[in-house]
């Protein structure tokens, strides 16, 4: 008998329907073959499926079994076909009576373990989003990762603990209760950030730069000796960025679902991602790769923060690979087997030491680097990458005793929540400004938009001219400066860029 079970294959963030055709022939030598460009993981499904069926108390038919994964020309690489194959064999051998019309609206997806229980499987959210397009669908997914699907409405989600329970359900003996939909709440105030701005002593200027970066979507470079809090400062950024909207949250969750990074039981990624890859990372790890490319760090940081600590230590080609995603907000990974596009729109925070030994400009420690070594160290970050970084701030060594914890003049420290409110207001202004344009933040403005949308007061213009002469700015840094000044003016709800805004923007000019 021939049975057709429906499932899916994930190619990057795209979902392609896959039919699992199982034939248990009444004639021929007993055997078990899987065709349809299966990967090694699917080849091995034979042993898992056979043992799981037997261990769940069913019989494995001693007949000629052929499994075809259609379409036949699409290479498939996932252990998630274990469940559809097992269900197909049980149905085709008459151990599971269901009409094939029912099977048309059912999707099976999951990896089996030898005792018949189901293991967490990646890509469940994509299956749910695909099934949503076919009205009246039911998806059968492993219990540990079933929660991922609950954010999708209009489908029935059946979480399965093991094969036996599923068979009972399909035979209408003992029904499994479907999971309820959860709504994506946008009230993310309850989410506490990992680090609060107010926890950091000193470094007022760096904190201010972080708020500007968050408000205008600018990339930020922090510059200072080791141990001055660069990493900690970077970690506060997700907490001051505006909360993820529900569509954004779904977008991030899709990527994490494909990468298999959603914790079992978790439904949706609500926090803005913070990724801090180590500088030993390969280019494939950074932008995505593998013969069936998985998302890399840039995509995992989508709509969040990518933090590169000790940026000059990253291999040159890895840094250069950041250029496309920083420009386009997405990344294309091309391999022999496929050509995949992942979204990758992130805020870059880079931290660098002032020199190879790290102590240049430290109040007590002495730097022993020669100017040539320092120049070579800075040259490792190429111009095109620096061009995409709008803000640059020195994070100087703090002399702890000078922080004056009991300073009577001390201004109360801003908390992440207060900063976030400022950022949200500034972003709202930008949304209004760019209503008819395909951009969202000041950092995305091109020169054309800067000329059209940024109004400078005459004093600000004079100041800018003075600065261009004094610091010998290139045309690029000129526009960068205006963009930063625009964001500073937005933070103060000012329609025009005044000389004060421009003067503050000058504080964050590049030093390299």
């Amino acid at each position: 008998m021939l049975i057709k079970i429906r499932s899916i294959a994930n190619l990057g963030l795209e979902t392609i329907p896959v039919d699992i055709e199982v034939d248990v022939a009444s004639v021929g030598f007993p055997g078990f073959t899987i065709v349809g460009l299966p990967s090694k993981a699917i080849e091995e499904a034979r042993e898992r499926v056979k043992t799981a069926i037997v261990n769940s108390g069913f019989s494995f038919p001693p007949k000629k079994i052929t499994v075809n994964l259609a379409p036949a020309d699409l290479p498939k690489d996932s252990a998630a076909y274990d469940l559809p194959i097992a269900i197909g064999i049980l149905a085709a051998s008459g151990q599971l009576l269901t009409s094939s019309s029912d099977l048309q609206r059912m999707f099976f997806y999951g990896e089996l373990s030898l005792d018949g229980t189901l293991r967490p499987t990646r890509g469940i959210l994509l299956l749910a989003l695909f099934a949503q397009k076919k009205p009246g669908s039911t998806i059968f997914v492993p219990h540990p990762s079933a929660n991922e699907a609950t954010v999708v409405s209009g489908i029935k989600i059946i979480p399965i603990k093991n094969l036996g329970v599923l068979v009972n359900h399909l035979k209408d003996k003992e029904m499994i209760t479907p999971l309820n939909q959860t709504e994506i709440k946008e009230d993310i105030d309850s989410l506490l950030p990992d680090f609060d701005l107010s926890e950091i002593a000193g470094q007022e200027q760096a904190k201010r730069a972080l708020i500007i970066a968050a408000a205008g979507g600018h990339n930020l470079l922090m510059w200072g000796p080791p141990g001055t809090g660069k990493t900690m400062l970077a970690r506060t950024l997700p907490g001051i960025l505006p909360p993820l909207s529900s569509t954004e949250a779904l977008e991030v969750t899709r990527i994490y679902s494909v990468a298999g990074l959603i914790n079992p039981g978790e439904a949706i990624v609500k926090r803005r991602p913070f990724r801090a890859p180590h500088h030993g990372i390969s280019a494939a790890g950074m932008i995505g790769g593998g013969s069936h490319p998985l998302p890399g760090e840039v995509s995992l940081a989508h709509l969040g923060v990518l933090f590169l600590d000790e940026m000059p230590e990253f291999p040159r080609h890895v840094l250069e690979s950041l250029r496309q995603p920083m420009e386009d907000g997405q990344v294309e990974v091309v391999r022999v087997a496929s050509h995949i596009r992942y979204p990758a729109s992130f805020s870059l925070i880079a931290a660098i030491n002032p020199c190879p030994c790290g102590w240049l400009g430290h109040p007590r420690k002495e730097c022993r680097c020669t100017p040539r070594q320092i120049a070579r160290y800075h040259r490792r970050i190429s111009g095109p990458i620096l061009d995409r970084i709008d803000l640059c701030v020195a994070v100087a060594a703090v002399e702890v005793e000078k922080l004056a914890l009991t300073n009577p003049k001390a201004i109360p420290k801003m908390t992440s929540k207060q900063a976030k409110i400022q950022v949200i207001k500034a972003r709202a202004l930008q949304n209004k400004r760019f209503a008819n344009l395909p951009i969202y933040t000041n950092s995305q403005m091109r020169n054309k938009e800067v000329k059209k949308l940024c109004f400078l007061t005459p004093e600000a213009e004079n100041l800018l001219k003075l600065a261009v002469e004094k610091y010998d700015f290139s045309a690029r840094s000129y526009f960068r400066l205006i963009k930063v000044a625009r964001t500073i003016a937005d933070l103060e709800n000012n329609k025009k860029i005044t000389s004060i805004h421009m003067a503050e923007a000058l504080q964050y000019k590049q030093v390299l």
Partner: protein
Amino acid sequence: MEYQKITGWQKLPELSQLKDLTTPPKELYFAGQWQKEIFKNGVAVIGSRQMTEYGRRVIEKIIPQLVSQKQTIISGFMYGVDQYAHQICLESGGKTIAVLGWGINFKLEGFDLKLAERIIKNKGLLFSEWENQQPSHWTFPVRNRLVAALAKKIIVIEAAEKSGSLITVKIAAKLKREIWAVPGPITSRLSTGTNALIAVGKAKIYLGNLPSPQTNLNKKSAPLINLLESDVLTANEIARKLGQPVAQIGAQLSLLTLKGQLVEKEGKYYLKNVN
């Protein structure tokens, strides 16, 4: 870069000072325009390769004064104090002689090359006793004796306890040149050499000219200026001391820097000396 050999330098009166040396150079090469006057009022400004913030400010303060007194700045063209002294001398319109620690025909690149070209353009000289010598550990101390001999007086900006600058001082003492040292913080490793010279009486204290009082101050930023009168501070520290938001302080600092009242180096601010 084009260079020339000086044939029979012993006969030139402007180089007679080199004859004081117990081991005068056999040959001499130079690049640039030869002018007798340049050797008249030579003052050697020497110091460490690892220049500190303090050393930088000292140079910025004293070199313009020396230039206005029509003195020629002689130094060793090494990065740190030497090159900064050449650079500030050029910026204040003075003439400078760079005594190289390598052969005159040695290819320079990057900042070195740019500085060398600037020295020649401003009627200064590059000077060496070798033609094709590679820089090496021994060439620098050997070069130092020329620096000491060419100058009438020597000012040590910053020097550690054991350093090349002290070798120059030792030679200069033998040649009976006037030796000055700039006192420094006693906690800084790079001032131990200069302070020791003063302490044992080998060098006189060099303090430069006394600064003239500042007048053109903006009233609103006066507290900020007052703060910087005695210290080098970052924007964070200034904001903390004045109890104002760093955004405002940052804007003020940018404005004052653009006006030329403040100088910013590596995130720290200090007052520019207007003499």
